[in-house]
C-alpha cells in the first residue's frame, strides 16, 4: 500500500529534541510520515533515538521530560507538542521498555480496566473489553492475580493489554518482546500484525531483535545518531544494513550474504522458499527436511549433558526442589533439577517465562534454599540479577568499588575510564558491566575468582554490538577459569556466547546438550538460521553459510 495515499497517523517535521543537560540532541531534524494502517519497524543501535522518537509521538517528550524541542509532531492531525500525552491518550497506546514502571493498580483486571474507567466507560463495556484483550494476549488466567506476583514477561503482556484495551488507532511499542520468551515474543509480533490487518491499527515498533519482526513489518525506519538513516521496505533495509550497519543484519540475511546469495530474505519463510527455488534445499520428506548433502533433521536427544571440561566441576545441583510463595500461593518452581557446570564452561540457561531459570541461578548463588536436594559449590558464586540498577547506590563509579581490587574489577569489565562518572550517566550496557564489576570486585583473579559467574537476562535492551561485547566479556571470564552461566531468552545471543544450552520447562530440565544440538532442533528455541535450514548442528550464520557452500 502506498503510504502517500493514506491519511497520516503520525507526522514529524524537522523534529530536533535535546534532553535537559544533554550535550547533543537525541533527535536531530527528524521528518517522517506514517500512514494509517502501517506496521513500521524502528531499528537502530542502543542510544540512536528510537525511544525518544516514540516518546515524542505520545507526547511524553517534551511534556514529561522537559528539554528543548523544535519542529512539529502531529498524531492523526492533533498537535502533540501543544496537547501532550493527556490530549493524545484517546488515540495513542504506548508501551515503554520497563513494564514495572507502567503498572498503577493492584490486580491485573483492574490494571487493564483502568484506562476505560478513567474514560467513564460503563461496567459492562469494561468487562467485555478486558476479557477480549486478555484473550487476545493469552492472559485470561492472570486476570485475578496481584500485579506484584507476576514475572517480567507476564507484566509486559499486562502493560500491553492496558495500552490496547481502549483500541487506540496508533500503538507505540518500545521493545515489547525484550522480556518475553521466544514463544511469547513470536506470538506478540503476530498479534500486532493481526491487530494491524483486522482493525487497521497503526503500529510503530522499536526492536533490537529484528529477525523476530522484520517479516511482519510493512516498512523499516533505521535511526543513527538521532537522525533517520534509512526509510524503506524490509527487503531494501537488509541490503542497506549489509553495507551501512552490519550490526542490524538479521542472521538469515547474514548467512545469505556470507554464502553470496541474493536477494536477502526478510524472514524464515522467504529464506526457505529462496533456497528451495535455488535448489539448495529439498522439500520436506518423511524424515524431516531432506537437504544439503543428505543431512537430515534429527530429534533432540533429551537431557544428556555433555562431558565437563578438564577443569572440574564449578557447581552442581542434585535433584533440587525449590518452592516459592506463601501459604496458599506456594508453588514448586524447581522440581528435582540435576545440573552441573564445569570450570571455564559457558552455558546458556533457557526456557519459557516462569520455567525456573532465575530461581535456579538464585539457588546456585545461595539466595534461596531448596526444600530438598543438594547444591555443591565450593568456590563461591557471583550473581548479576535482572536489575543491575539495584547494585548501584552511589553517585560516582569509583565510590562503588574499593582500592586496587575495585580498579581491577573495572578493568576486567572494561570500565576503567568511567571511574569518575555518575552511574546514572552510563548507558544500559555500561551500567550492567559496572554491576558485574561490583559483584566480582575483590575476586577477579586466581583462587579468589568465583567458581560460578551467573547473569540473569543480561541482554534486555541491548543491540547486537553490545551483546557481542557481553559475549566477549563472558569468554574472558571463562578463560580466567570461571564457569559462566547466563539465563536468556535470546537464542541468537545463546548461539554466540554458549558452548552448551540447558533448557528448563516448568521446573524440570528438558534438554542439556551442546548449543548446536539444542538450538537446531526445535521451532521456538532455535536460531533463525536453524529454522531456515533445519539442519542438525547448524545454528549461526557462519555455519549456515558453510553448509550452503558445501552444496555443489
Amino acid at each position: 500500500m502506498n503510504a502517500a495515499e493514506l491519511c497520516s497517523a503520525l507526522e514529524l517535521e524537522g523534529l530536533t529534541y535535546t534532553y535537559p543537560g544533554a550535550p547533543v540532541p537525541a533527535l536531530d531534524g527528524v521528518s517522517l510520515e506514517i500512514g494509517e494502517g502501517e506496521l513500521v519497524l524502528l531499528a537502530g543501535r542502543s542510544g540512536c533515538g528510537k525511544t525518544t522518537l516514540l516518546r515524542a509521538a505520545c507526547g511524553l517528550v517534551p511534556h514529561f521530560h522537559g528539554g528543548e524541542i523544535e519542529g512539529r509532531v502531529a498524531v492523526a492531525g492533533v498537535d502533540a507538542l501543544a496537547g501532550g500525552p493527556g490530549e493524545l491518550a484517546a488515540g495513542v497506546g504506548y508501551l515503554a521498555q520497563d513494564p514495572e514502571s507502567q503498572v498503577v493498580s493492584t490486580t491485573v483486571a483492574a490494571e487493564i480496566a483502568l484506562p476505560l474507567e478513567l474514560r467513564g466507560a460503563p461496567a459492562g463495556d469494561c468487562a467485555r473489553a478486558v476479557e477480549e484483550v486478555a484473550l487476545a494476549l493469552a492472559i485470561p488466567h492472570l486476570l485475578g492475580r496481584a500485579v506484584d506476583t507476576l514475572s517480567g514477561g507476564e507484566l509486559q503482556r499486562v502493560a500491553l493489554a492496558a495500552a490496547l484495551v481502549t483500541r487506540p488507532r496508533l500503538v507505540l511499542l518500545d521493545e515489547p518482546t525484550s522480556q518475553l520468551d521466544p514463544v511469547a515474543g513470536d506470538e506478540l509480533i503476530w498479534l500486532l500484525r493481526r491487530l494491524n490487518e483486522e482493525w487497521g491499527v497503526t503500529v510503530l515498533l522499536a526492536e533490537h531483535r529484528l529477525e523476530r519482526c522484520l517479516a511482519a513489518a510493512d516498512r523499516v525506519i533505521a535511526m543513527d545518531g538521532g537522525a533517520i538513516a534509512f526509510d524503506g521496505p524490509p527487503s531494501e533495509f537488509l541490503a542497506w544494513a549489509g553495507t551501512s550497519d552490519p550490526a542490524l543484519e538479521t542472521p538469515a540475511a547474514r548467512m545469505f550474504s556470507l554464502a553470496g546469495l541474493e536477494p536477502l530474505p526478510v524472514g524464515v519463510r522467504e529464506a526457505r522458499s529462496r533456497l528451495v527455488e535455488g535448489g539448495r534445499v529439498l522439500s520436506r520428506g518423511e524424515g524431516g527436511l531432506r537437504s544439503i548433502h543428505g543431512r537430515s533433521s534429527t530429534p533432540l536427544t533429551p537431557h544428556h549433558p555433555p562431558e565437563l571440561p578438564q577443569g572440574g566441576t564449578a557447581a552442581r545441583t542434585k535433584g533440587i526442589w525449590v518452592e516459592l510463595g506463601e501459604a496458599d500461593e506456594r508453588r514448586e518452581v524447581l522440581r528435582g533439577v540435576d545440573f552441573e557446570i564445569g570450570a571455564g564452561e559457558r552455558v546458556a540457561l533457557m526456557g519459557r517465562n516462569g520455567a525456573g531459570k532465575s530461581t535456579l541461578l538464585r539457588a546456585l548463588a545461595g539466595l534461596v534454599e531448596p526444600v530438598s536436594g543438594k547444591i555443591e559449590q565450593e568456590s563461591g558464586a557471583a550473581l548479576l540479577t535482572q536489575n543491575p540498577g539495584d547494585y548501584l547506590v552511589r553517585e560516582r563509579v569509583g565510590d562503588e568499588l574499593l582500592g586496587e581490587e575495585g580498579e581491577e574489577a573495572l578493568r576486567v569489565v572494561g570500565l576503567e575510564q568511567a571511574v569518575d562518572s555518575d552511574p546514572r550517566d552510563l548507558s544500559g550496557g555500561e551500567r550492567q558491566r559496572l554491576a558485574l564489576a561490583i559483584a566480582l570486585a575483590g575476586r577477579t583473579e586466581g583462587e579468589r575468582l568465583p567458581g560460578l559467574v551467573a547473569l540473569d537476562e543480561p541482554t534486555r535492551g541491548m543491540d547486537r554490538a553490545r551483546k557481542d561485547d557481553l559475549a566477549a566479556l563472558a569468554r574472558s571470564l571463562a578463560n580466567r577459569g570461571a564457569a559462566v552461566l547466563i539465563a536468556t531468552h535470546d537464542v541468537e545471543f545463546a548461539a554466540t556466547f554458549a558452548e552448551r544450552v540447558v533448557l528448563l520447562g516448568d521446573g524440570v530440565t528438558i534438554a542439556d546438550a551442546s548449543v548446536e544440538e539444542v538450538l537446531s532442533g526445535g521451532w521456538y528455541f532455535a536460531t533463525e538460521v536453524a529454522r531456515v535450514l533445519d539442519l542438525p548442528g547448524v545454528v549461526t550464520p557462519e555455519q549456515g553459510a558453510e553448509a550452503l557452500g558445501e552444496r555443489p
Partner: protein
Amino acid sequence: MRSPFAYVPRRGPLQAASPGAAVAYLGAIATVAFVFSNPIVLLAAGCAAVAAGLLAGARRSVLAALRMGLALAVLIVAVNALVVSRGETVLARLGDWPLLGRVDVTAEALAEGLVLGLRAAVVLVVFAVYSACVDPDRVLRALRPLAGRSALTASLVSRLVPVAAADGARLREAARLRGPGAAPVGRAATARRLLAGSLDRAVDVAATLELRGYGLPARRTGEGRRPLSRRHRGAPRRPRQDARFLAVAAALLAATIAVAAAGAAGFHAYPTVEIDTGAATLGFAALVALTGLAPRK
C-alpha cells in the same frame, strides 16, 4: 519478593465484602483501640484484629505487623519511662541525664507506655489486615464518584508502599551479592537509593496515568454504548457478606458509645494505676474479641 502487607486476592468473606463494609468493620475495631485506654479492652481489640486477619488468610501480614508492633511497643514503653517521671511508685532513680534532667522510672509511666504501645500495635495489625485483604482497586472504584483524584492518589500511595518494600528487599539482596572489593552498602545508602527509586517510579506512574487517559474528561457512565446486560444496567449489587460486616461494625460502635457514655472500661495511669475490671468492662472486652470471628467462612 512481595511485601507481607501487599494485597493478595483470596476467596474469603472479608475480601468479598465491599470496601465500605470492610473498612467499617476494621475501622470499628480501630475505633475501640483509639477510644479506650483500658488494657483489657485493648488486648481484646488486638485479639479481634489478629483473629480477623488469620481467618481472612492474612497470616503473614498479621505476623509481620505483630513483630513491628511489638518492637514499636517496647520502644514506646522505654521512651515513656525515661521522659515521664510522674507517678507515685518509683521503681528506679537514674539521676540527672543530659536533656532529660532528673529521670525516675515509675510503674505508672511504664503502664502508660504499655497502653500506648498496645494501642499502636493494635492499630498496626488492623492496618495490616486492611492492606492484605481489601483490594485497593475496589477502594479506588468506590471512592471515584465522590472524589476521583483524591481516591486515585490514595490508591497510588497504598500501592507504592508494598512496591517500595519489594524494592527495599531487592536492594538488600543486591547488597548481599556485592564482592568483597566493593564498597559496603549501609542502611543510609540503601535508604537514599530507595528514596531516589521511589521518586523515579512516581514520575513514571504519573506519565503512565497521563498516557492511560487520566487527563481526559471522563464520560459519565451511561453515555455512549448501552451496557451489555441487565446485570450492568442497574446499581451494582451489594455483596451478601456486607450485611455481616456492617452489622458487626454497627454493634461494636453502638457498644463503644454506650460503654464510653456509662464511664465503664476506664483506665488511669496517674497518680497510681487504676484499671476498671468490672463486669461491664469484661463483657465489653469479650464482645470486642468476638468481633474478630466475623471473617469466618
